[in-house]
């Protein structure tokens, strides 16, 4: 199956727009983006591994996870859930953090993930604004 991948950058707005299709139904794709045990299996680019320390998927909750390097160094990131519309969209505020979720820099990004069910596939649209 041909799966769409679109990656657009608006440098002036400091925004990245990504659209990607996945060959699975909405329920499964939604779970893959929101459940720690699934996220850990695909979030890390090789040779890194993703390891979740905390996950509380609800508005005001957070996901604290690490990218673990081959020599076992943990680089933590924190994702705070701002707004959740089940099986439709969720928005987050993302920062690099320490192991307790304290931000490491003032920089953060605001991300909105939207999900649209199709025939035998699901389209995910990601809008990332760097602040």
């Amino acid at each position, binding site marked *: 199956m041909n799966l769409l991948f679109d990656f657009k950058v608006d440098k002036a707005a400091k925004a990245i727009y990504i659209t990607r299709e996945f060959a699975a139904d909405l329920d499964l794709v939604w779970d893959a983006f929101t459940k720690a045990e699934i996220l850990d299996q695909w*979030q890390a680019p090789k040779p890194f591994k993703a390891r979740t320390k905390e996950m509380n998927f609800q508005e005001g909750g957070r996901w604290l996870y690490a990218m673990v390097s081959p020599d076992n160094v943990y680089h933590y990131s924190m994702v705070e859930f701002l707004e959740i519309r089940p099986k439709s969209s969720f928005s987050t505020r993302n920062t690099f953090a320490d192991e307790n979720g304290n931000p490491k820099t003032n920089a953060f990004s605001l991300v909105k993930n939207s999900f649209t069910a199709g025939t035998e596939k699901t389209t995910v649209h990601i809008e990332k604004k760097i602040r």
Partner: protein
Amino acid sequence: MRRDIFQAIADPTRRAILVLIAVQAMTPNAIAEHFDITRQSISKHLRILSECDLLAKKQDGREIFYELKIDRMKEIDSWLDQFRKITEEKFQNLDQLLFTLKNKKK
């Protein structure tokens, strides 16, 4: 203070300044002549661009010339390039995982 490089290009005047000095080194006065804004706000934009480490200063007699540090501008592109590659790779991981998960369900 060091600033995020994205801050530099967020502003249209600063983008225009970068285009000007990419061609040739210019004095603040020469830069200001291209804009309909006060010399003071040009100085402010130049200060922000300096803080983003995008400007190289050259002294020539009594005059100061600004030129663009091309390498720093390239950093944005290489970051975006890297981010795109990582995103593609993550999604390919997910494709495989979804395939496995779907077969488990059956």
